[in-house]
């Protein structure tokens, strides 16, 4: 096991900087997820660590061993790095049985036959695939193939474990099960792990820390709670969880509490960490679960504000209703157990929890 240091990593494809000055330090035994939409540079970063893609600039050091150093021209080929990489496609060799697949890395390391057998049996037991040793990959289900791929990587005790969207080829039900299983396994192994995904639930539930990437850069780096509750910018807020964005203007700035004016003139009170300037355009973000329909007679108080909104759509999604609202020009989505009766609804917005971003960021809501 080892720690991973990525410093100033740059990878260009023609004029495009697929990875643009990325620096991450992953501590020994830490589980870090690279999260972002497709094309954000997360897979390119992973490939650079594994040695499948040669970056243009920067340094990659694992456990004191320099994998890549652009300034000195150091570049270790993948086979000399000792990483473990589980591919999105699993990449099981179709002409070999499960046993042959898993034993291959040990054969390369010239481990003696008895020891090989013992370790393959052990790792197959770990992933609960010991009964399938003689099968060929095509005889296994997607979930089983994924476990074999993991076993093949774990069997040689890699310095770090790299997982490239390992759950994305499974169907929804299986994915949930595999995620829980992976979380258990992760606590047992304690391997330094880099996990690449575009699925926020995987990222939030598995990681020690999350690196949200956008356009080749790091948008935010923090614990799952940090990322979810205190997103650094509208992109992160939108990418992690469904978020409603409302354009607003600072009516009364203040430290601790600010009064914002929405598009239709209604005012709400929010907790603000940063000082705002009078009249500045801001965007305020609410999670759907933070908003609710105000109870009869509820009024604006220290806990939150009550505003009037117009109901645009309602749709039943099983057990709950999704209600589309218009609040002073900003579209909102709200989930309730009972649909609002009329065209108008009184909405309760909490004072804490709403996040104010300076300048109205262009975010697809």
């Amino acid at each position: 096991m080892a720690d991973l240091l990525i410093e100033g990593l740059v990878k260009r494809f023609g004029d495009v900087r697929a990875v643009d000055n990325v620096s991450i330090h992953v501590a020994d035994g830490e589980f870090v997820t690279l999260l972002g939409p497709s094309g954000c540079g997360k897979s390119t970063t992973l490939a650079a660590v594994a040695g499948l893609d040669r970056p243009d600039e920067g340094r990659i050091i694992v456990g004191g061993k320099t994998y890549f150093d652009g300034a000195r021209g150091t570049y270790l080929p993948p086979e000399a790095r000792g990483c473990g990489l589980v591919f999105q496609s699993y990449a099981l060799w179709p002409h070999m049985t499960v046993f042959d697949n898993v034993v291959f890395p040990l054969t390369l390391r010239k481990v003696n036959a008895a020891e090989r057998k013992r370790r393959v049996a052990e790792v197959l037991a770990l992933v609960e695939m010991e009964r399938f040793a003689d099968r060929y990959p095509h005889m296994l289900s997607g979930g089983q193939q994924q476990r074999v791929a993991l076993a093949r990587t774990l069997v040689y005790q890699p310095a770090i474990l790299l997982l490239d969207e390992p759950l994305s080829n499974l169907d929804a039900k299986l994915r949930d099960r595999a995620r829980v299983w992976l979380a258990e396994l992760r606590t047992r192994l304690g391997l330094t792990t880099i996990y690449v995904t575009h699925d926020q639930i995987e990222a939030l539930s598995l990681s020690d820390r999350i690196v949200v990437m956008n356009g080749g850069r790091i948008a935010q780096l923090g614990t799952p709670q940090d990322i979810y509750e205190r997103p650094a910018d509208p992109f992160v807020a939108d990418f992690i969880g469904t978020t409603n964005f409302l354009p607003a203007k600072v009516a009364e700035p203040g430290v601790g509490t600010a009064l914002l004016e929405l598009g239709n003139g209604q005012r709400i009170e929010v907790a603000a960490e940063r000082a705002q300037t009078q009249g500045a355009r801001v965007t305020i973000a609410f999670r759907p679960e933070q908003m609710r329909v105000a109870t009869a007679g509820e009024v604006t108080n220290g806990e939150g504000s009550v505003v009037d909104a117009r109901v645009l759509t309602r749709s039943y999604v099983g057990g709950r209703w999704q209600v589309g609202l218009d609040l002073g020009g900003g579209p909102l989505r709200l989930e309730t157990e009972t649909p609002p009766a009329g065209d108008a609804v009184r909405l309760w917005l909490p004072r804490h929890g709403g996040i104010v971003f300076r300048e109205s960021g262009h975010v697809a809501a």
Partner: protein
Amino acid sequence: MSTTTSETGAPAAPARFPRETPIQYATTLLVVVLVAAPLLPVLYQSLLDGALYDHDARLTLGNFVRLAQNEGFPRILWNTFLLAGLTTVVAQLFGTLAAILFGRTDLPGARVLGELFLWPLYLSALVLSFGWYTIYGPAGYVTLFWQSLFGDAPWNLYSLGGMAVIAGVSQAPLAYLYCLSSAGMTDPTLEEAARVSGAGTFRTLWRVTLPLMMPAIAYSAVLNFTIGLELLSVPLIFGEPAGINVLTTFLFNISATSPRPDHGLAATAAALMLIVICFLVWLQGRLLGNTRRFVTLGGKATRPRPFRLGGLRWPLFAAALVYVVMTGVAPIAMLILRAFTSFLSPMIPLADVLTLDNFAALLNEPVYARAVTNSFLVSLVGAALATALIGMVALIVHRSEFRFRGPLHYVALFPRAVPGVVAGIGFFYAFALIPGIGGIRNSIWILVIAFTMRFIPAGLGAVAPMLLQVSPDLDRAARVQGADWWTTTRRIMMPLMRPALVACYTILFISFFKEYSTAIFLFAPGSEVIGTALLQTWVQGEVGVVAGLAAIQVAVIAVCITTARAIFGVKLHG
């Protein structure tokens, strides 16, 4: 995993000198030498006033002047381009019609007819020419039959038109395959849209299906024109006696095979031919956008709904059947029948002439027996060696980080632009130039070397598409786990490539077995192959022996194709 101890991480310290380096460089060097070997001597010889193995030969441009002033030469060029042009027209016409009829309509027996239509592709034009001779030649079966009924036959194989029909028929399968695969890949809804909006069958065919095939037709036309220019067998058999010369027969007559060779003139004509073909191959690449260059690519099984021919179904079936029987089946059948008879004529009952004498002659005459054995040796061993080389080239080009993989790919594909005649002359010079390899020069190994060079592109065409279908994750996985390039290649890629290599071997075996145009410049007494023996015996007028040799070639190729298809499921074309 706390229970396991021992080493972690990488298997061993990285070698200071990765072992893929020598392998990759050696393969590249071999390919470069193979491809350059025939070309450089031809270009060099074209600039010399004497034979290039004479020490007092001097550099000159005189050969070009002599060629330009050669009084017969403009005529030869005219004939060459006219023959290639007519051949292309015939091939495209029949090929396109067949593609539409067999591929896109409800013609009865379309599958079987389509298979029969491809026959000429598997055989050499040489064998097909002999077949046509036995049927439509001056003393051919059908010619005599016609004469006995109506007087003189209106056709004459010993003319440009006659040659173009034979060559066109033997090349029509290429046009057919390209049009068919293009038809298989176009979106069937385009045709359905036309029919839904009220266009009838023939209107849709003419206005939608055919225009959609245009890229395939254009590409295969250039391809067929190129092959038409390179063609040796048909002009040699039917053009020579009639005094119709083309570039290939001109080369054949003045180069090494003639008693008084004019090396300067031959090399200059060869260089000229090389330049023209290079341009045409470049044009092919442009037309194809440098992708899908080979027919060997497997087609999609999703075939659009066939057109209904209605009342024309059976008349068109009859027409197609007549074509297939007259152009392919009957000539081959008659050639084989001729091998088992002493004479073949509609006037004489078959039972009177049946004999095994031709095969007895083949066995007793050591030259013929040796030709058959040599053909097997060259094809079995040579194709294996060539397949090994081609497999390595494909792996380096498509599955390595080798610095020169791009140039290697280019050089490996270059022999497409080298006509068999030019390659033959070139290798002849190359082996004459290099001292100390006289042993190879008079053995079958010179043929193996020359054939390998010629068919690298065809082999790559069989291997590359299948190799590209193997996910790159499979070899990357091995690399990340600690296998270097060579281990990955041996343990992962080669086993996965096995079907591609079998297909490559089959295609090379057939190509080597029927090859003659390069061989006639290179063989020596003792290293004859079936192709050269066919031409020699033909010149000697021993039609029975020719038919016997041809029958053996046809039989071996038929067995080879059937086996490859049945056992390995090899697809030899789209």
